[in-house]
């Protein structure tokens, strides 16, 4: 069968590949002996019509990068080895790897191969203005400019292949972030999203005035509480609905019995006769017990002595009103249910404490973004087991106000000592900053013993973003995202020579 095109947002479209099959009236009506063949041929036709003319990658020869120094991040450095790429994935990697037949080869003698760099805190391609109406349902990828070619090319020139971009807006809960790969898409555009539901973005506005920050935090907390209320509302509704349906059933059963009994006796001893209008409450209760065979339910609480049985019954049969669906609250509930991590941008110590509190109150999977003051409470962050994604490390004296007023170069070192999981992004300053994520990481790691900046921005960031089964290290079976450097990547004098994303060459110097 011809494989589907590897473009994430096309592959996720449920209509792809099934339109022709589902709408064909002949499907399912072929004779019992031949459904398989007919169905298969139709599927094949459908797939062929929707797939691109040639899925070039699949039919391409495998690629071997040989004689390279391989820093694979998932094992020791291979001083002289090869990487075999087939299609989108790494087929084999090692010192004595036999290249497959018909493989194209690239001689990387004297060069170093590393996984593609990941910027876990980026603003690459996010050129549109902040949206004031951004809320939990806003998606970062909607603001991603897939034609910001110059920025992409420069990022690739510096080895960056994957970025996480947040949805930014006014303060508070601003949307859902996305993880984007810098692969060519259609025509000149680039930017293939591999996770458009990566994390809930929250900005506590650390640069604002104290009253504004207070307001923001209260607003965020209120939104989470309202989400829980919304859930309770729906749970109540579900219960009420069940009760109602149960009563409907029993009512139907009863009416059937009544009919039978009614046919036998005109005026029975049953007190269900409609002319027994005024009943004493005790009688009513007794009769209800007889009718339902159980203790009075919730519905009966509202039944006062004033109501007649029949009217009671009619009221009880009223279907409970369905609460209004609110997708924004549902997004927050996913965060509360650990289905969506929450990234909170907090720089000042007070805001970091608030973020930790929020995570505890609603049991969120929290990740701190920025965290300029983190070194002041490294132990508290470690105790809460919250990972930190550092941003801008180098701050000038004049920038030391508002959110950066206590910025220190040793922030990462303090986190490392306290045992906090941390990584570094570029700080989402603007689209240009992503390209220097390795330099920023080096500045952060400069004071950490054995601070391996390259490790942080490859496997470290992949782990934090939850993508370490796909990218971040060079292991057979993983997506082939790799960079060939002219020398040691940490040496500023070495240049990026080639970049591969998902096995495809996307940059060549």
């Amino acid at each position, binding site marked *: 069968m011809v494989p589907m095109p590897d473009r994430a947002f096309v592959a996720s479209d449920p209509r792809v590949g099934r339109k022709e099959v589902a709408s064909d009236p002949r499907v399912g009506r072929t004779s019992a002996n031949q459904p398989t063949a007919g169905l298969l041929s139709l599927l094949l036709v459908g797939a062929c019509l929707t797939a691109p003319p040639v899925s070039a990658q699949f039919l391409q020869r495998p690629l071997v990068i040989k004689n390279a120094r391989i820093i694979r991040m998932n094992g020791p450095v291979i001083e002289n080895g090869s990487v075999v790429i087939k299609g989108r994935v790494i087929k084999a990697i090692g010192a004595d790897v036999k290249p497959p037949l018909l493989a194209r080869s690239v001689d990387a003698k004297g060069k170093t191969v590393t996984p593609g760099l990941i910027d876990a805190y980026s603003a690459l391609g996010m050129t549109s203005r902040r949206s004031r109406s951004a809320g939990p349902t806003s998606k970062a990828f909607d603001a991603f400019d897939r034609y910001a070619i110059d920025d992409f090319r420069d990022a690739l020139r510096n080895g960056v292949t994957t970025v996480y971009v947040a949805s930014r807006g006014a303060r508070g809960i601003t949307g859902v972030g996305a993880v984007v790969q810098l692969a060519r898409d259609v025509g000149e555009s680039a930017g293939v999203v591999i996770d458009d539901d990566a994390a809930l973005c929250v900005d506590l506005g650390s640069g604002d005035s104290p009253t504004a920050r207070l307001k923001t935090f209260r607003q965020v907390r209120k939104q989470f509480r309202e989400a829980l209320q919304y859930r309770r509302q729906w749970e109540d509704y579900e219960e009420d609905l069940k009760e109602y349906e149960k009563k409907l059933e029993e009512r139907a059963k009863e009416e059937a019995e009544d009919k039978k009994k009614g046919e036998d006796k005109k005026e029975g001893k049953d007190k269900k006769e409609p002319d027994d209008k005024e009943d004493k409450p005790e009688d009513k209760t007794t009769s209800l017990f007889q009718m339902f065979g159980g203790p009075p339910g919730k519905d009966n609480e509202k039944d006062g002595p004033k109501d007649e049985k029949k009217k009671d019954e009619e009221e009880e049969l009223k279907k409970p009103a369905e609460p209004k669906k609110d997708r924004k609250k549902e997004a927050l509930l996913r965060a509360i249910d650990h289905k969506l991590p929450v990234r909170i941008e907090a720089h000042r110590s007070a805001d970091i404490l608030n973020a930790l509190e929020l995570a505890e109150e609603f049991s969120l999977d929290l990740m701190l973004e920025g965290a300029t003051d983190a070194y002041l409470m490294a132990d508290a962050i470690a105790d809460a087991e919250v990972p930190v994604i550092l941003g801008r490390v180098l701050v000038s004296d004049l920038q030391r106000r508002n959110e950066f007023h206590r910025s220190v170069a040793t922030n990462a070192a303090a986190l490392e000592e306290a045992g906090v999981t941390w990584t570094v992004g570029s700080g989402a300053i603007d689209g240009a*900053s992503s390209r*220097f994520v390795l330099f920023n990481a080096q500045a952060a790691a400069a004071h950490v013993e054995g601070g391996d900046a390259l490790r942080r921005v490859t496997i470290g960031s992949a782990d934090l973003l939850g993508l370490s089964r796909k990218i971040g290290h060079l292991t057979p079976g993983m997506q082939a995202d790799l960079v060939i450097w002219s020398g040691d990547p940490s040496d500023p004098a070495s240049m990026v020579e080639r970049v591969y994303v998902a096995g495809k060459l996307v940059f060549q110097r």
Partner: protein
Amino acid sequence: MKKAESRMMNGECQMMNDERGMRNAHDPMSRLVFLHSAFSILHSTFALGAVGLLCAVAAGASGQSAPSESVILAGRMVAPDGSLVDNVAVVVADGKIKAVKSADEFSERDGIIDRRDAVLCPGLIDAYSVLGAYGQNIETVNAIDPAASVRDSIDAYHRNFRAALRAGVTTALICPAPNNLVGGVGVVVRPDGTGSVETLRDEGPLLFALGSSAQAYSREPTSRMGALHLLRDALERARDGEGHGRLVSFAKGELSGMVICERAEDVSAALRTFGGIQRTPMIVHTAEAADVAEEIADHNKDAVVLVGPYTFGMSPRVLSGAAVLSNAGVNVVFAGRLPAAPTEGIRLTAALAVRYGMDAKAARAAMTSAAAQAIGVGDRVGSIAPGMDADFVVFSGDPLRMDSRVVEVYIKGVRVPMGMANVE
């Protein structure tokens, strides 16, 4: 002003001005005399050897804590040409570098500072800075104001000086703001780590500025046309001996100058306007350096171009510009703009310029020896060579790498105590 006019040379000049706090913590003259006498004792008792040594050590110890001669062993060292040399020993005496030898010549003994796991680098030079003077150096009343000196606006006690030291910057050229066509002179200073600031060059380069920052609506010039006309006029008169002494000196080629340019056309204008003057001014420029590289190289190979500093968010053309200029043979030096840019800005600009094609050696020289030469103190600081002041920084690795950090800073052979940044 007369005092200023009489000190035109690049010579050493030490201010003993109480109000500004710019003085030496220890009176240098008496210390020199003391040590001189100690050495003469040494000479005369050379045959006795041990006694002479004891006297020298005692003499040094009573003046300050460091011995009169010390040796630092380094795994690598940044040489004046910017290359990295392995396994060196630097002999320091009297605050100056006495000799640079191979580390193998020295065996383990007392008094040796072992930094063989580190890289020794001359103290970094910020060739365009506002340390201690930020906000106080803007005087826009007169477009042509050669009488001003930034020395009058420097706060020597400002904590920015300590922050600069912590980043390895030991010398800075502090400049008036680029808001006037002729803004006055800059001053080269060196913080000594004990809280005071020493002047290395009092009559620094004369500062010129072209670009929109030099234009104002409240006074002339209000446009580029007006600016160049005024400037040409002033320079012509200065050539004829008319006008302020500093301008006349500059026109004669005796006083160096520095032109702050905003855009490529400002650089072209600068080359045209100042072309006739022998001592070529330095050009400070940023984003469009790549566009004018050829013009600068053709026009005047001796021009020095200051680039940067680069901060994340700027166009990377700043960096490719530095590379193009350097490869075309133009002298490139990095501007630190402390404290307006991060203190690691000089090293970051250098590292990024290398990534964008600049030669690593040229980048290291741009931070040290080339910068010192450009600001006129190249005979005293900026390189580790015999006769130079012993200002150096011990880095944990190649200073071009962002993952290297400052381990120690020495000014005139004395280690500077450094506290934790921002937690004082």
